[in-house]
């Protein structure tokens, strides 16, 4: 799921594109070169580098990584749109992924979802809170069914979330 960014104010100057693959980011990518026999295989790791740096993957980012790896922008876009963890619009500062698949549903995830939406201020799943702090997205099975309800906040995997625990958890993410 991805959210739509607010429209740019009219007359806002276009910022020059800042490439991702320079300096340490480029080094990180280059360190992976010997591990795969093709440049194409570096695409998923490269997309992660972009998302870690920018929080989302823009069309210009897709064009850039295409240039670096020798892939067309259309090809890159086809790959990016296949994988749900790559975001194509700016997200809140902290992205919260909450599982709602059947095992978690049996364990009460609906209440957790309610609590998350309430305490983050996000109106509904898939949207960003007005202060830009959180985006809550609904995801499929997170592979922690016995420790329901699991959520991911950024890279933090938090198990056994209950509605009662939500406020304290959110506090850790300013």
């Amino acid at each position, binding site marked *: 799921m991805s959210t739509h960014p607010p429209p740019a104010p009219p007359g806002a100057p276009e910022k020059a594109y800042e490439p991702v693959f320079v300096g340490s980011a480029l080094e990180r990518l280059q360190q992976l070169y010997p591990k795969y026999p093709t440049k194409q295989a570096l695409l998923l790791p490269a997309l992660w580098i972009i998302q870690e740096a920018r929080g989302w993957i823009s069309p210009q980012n897709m*064009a850039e990584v295409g240039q670096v790896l020798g892939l*067309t*922008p259309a090809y890159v*876009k*086809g790959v990016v749109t296949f994988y749900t963890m790559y975001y194509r619009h700016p997200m809140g500062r902290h992205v919260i992924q909450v599982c709602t698949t059947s095992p978690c549903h049996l364990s009460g995830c609906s209440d957790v979802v309610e609590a998350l939406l309430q305490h983050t201020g996000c109106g509904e799943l898939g949207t960003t809170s007005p202060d830009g702090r959180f985006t809550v997205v609904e995801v499929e099975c997170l592979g922690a069914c016995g420790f329901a309800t699991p959520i991911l906040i950024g890279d933090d995997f938090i198990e056994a979330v209950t509605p009662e625990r939500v406020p304290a958890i959110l506090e850790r993410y300013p």
Partner: protein
Amino acid sequence: MVPRFSLMSDPVRVTIDGVELGVARGTTIIEAAKQAGILIPHYCYHPSLPSPAVCRMCLVEVEKAPKLMPACATTVTEGQVVHVHSEVAEKAREGVLELLLINHPLDCPICDQAGECELQDYVFQEGRARTRYADFAKRFNPVEDFGPDILYVPNRCILCTRCVRFMDDVAATPVLNVSERGDRAFIGIDANELLDHPWSGNVVDLCPVGSLVSKDFLHKARAWELDKTASICPGCTQGCNIEIDTRDDVVVRIRPRPNLDVNRHFMCDHGRMNYRWMNRGDRAEAPLRRSNGAMQACDWETALDDLATLSAEPGPVVVLASGRASVESLGFIMRLFAGRDVTAALQVPRGEEAPLAGVPDLALRVERVPNLHGAQLLGFDAEWSTAVRATEHAALTVLLDVELDDDELATIKRCASLVALTTRDDPILQAAVLTLPVTSMVEESGTYLNRDYRLQRFRQAKPAPGMARPAWWVAAAALGRVNPDVRVPGSVEDALEALTSEEWLSGITPDSVGWTGIRLDGLVAGTVR
């Protein structure tokens, strides 16, 4: 059933819907079925594309196999028994068709593909009569402009991915993708990389439904209104086999005609889009002869007498011919001036080569004429500008449907005596003593020799305008007057036969050329020149 075994060593014997046959090892079931005269319904499979087996239409029942097998991706094995029209296989196909239709809009009344649509065809043949999806909204995506000629209508797309595979593997230019996942998927393109590849028009042919459509053809004609004629593309020396589609004698579309030895299933956009000249209205319709300073219409008898007279007079002759002239036309023109001092040149526009990477030896060629080798073998070997200059000292200059720029026009106007065989009304005609209306290649039949020395036939696709006749007939009829021993051919087939006294054409008959052409081995080997 009589077993049909092809003349190959070690054929694999299979039975398909009761028909026994032997096919080469490695043949897929779907191709083997074709040899048995059975069409297995399919979408994503195409003989010129790699086979991913995603549409699942071609699932057939194979005895002893645990599941239905995709015929496009399963090779035959010895003793295999395949059922294409068993209940299980038909039910599977009916299932696929039903699922394809749940999101497919009921666009037939406004869709260009109607009448030549594989979805329509198979649903009519094997689909359910009524939908069971009535209570849900169909998935909707807006139409997208993919580039110079191509529109993408995502709602109609059945995700067969032929277009993506064509651009990826045959055009080697991966500008199309599948975007998103599941039933949200559609064919995507990057806004900065439009579909302007020189061979991209083929995706419209490949699309089994009306999802990728040509803007040029949009809402122009209905498929069932079209007359289709087998022809050869006059766009370059490659000689792609084409089909000319006309509606009420107007050419509305050109499409490739399959020829596995020349262009497989493809043609380039230059050839595809270059047909408007075939419909020109500004035609020369009657022979005109100069009389008392003015051009006057006359009948063919008079005109041919004039031509014969002019041809018999001594002195150098210069012939400047259109690159689209057929073997028959060029052949008889040269015969008309046999024994004379002839400078003959072919007008050859040039452009950039544009290969189709995934098919060996297939490209839009630099020389944008269909019969360059044929012309050269018939004596059209002079350099163009040299020949143009030579008209100043020629006794007779003959033009065959050429296009001249101002300088060339000025030079040629100074020639002694000008005869113009022409398709259209042209400034040069004012300088001529005799203008004769001839047919363009789409209004006559004939043959071309392509760059690989392949002789190929093309067929008349629309009627000749006015009194226009093929150039070979004009030359032959005049020749018949000059030399009464010459028999004037009554048909283009006779014209070709008459030319087989040329060494390079010896032994050729129209039947031997057929409709896929014949490679002239002697020329290829260099043993004949």
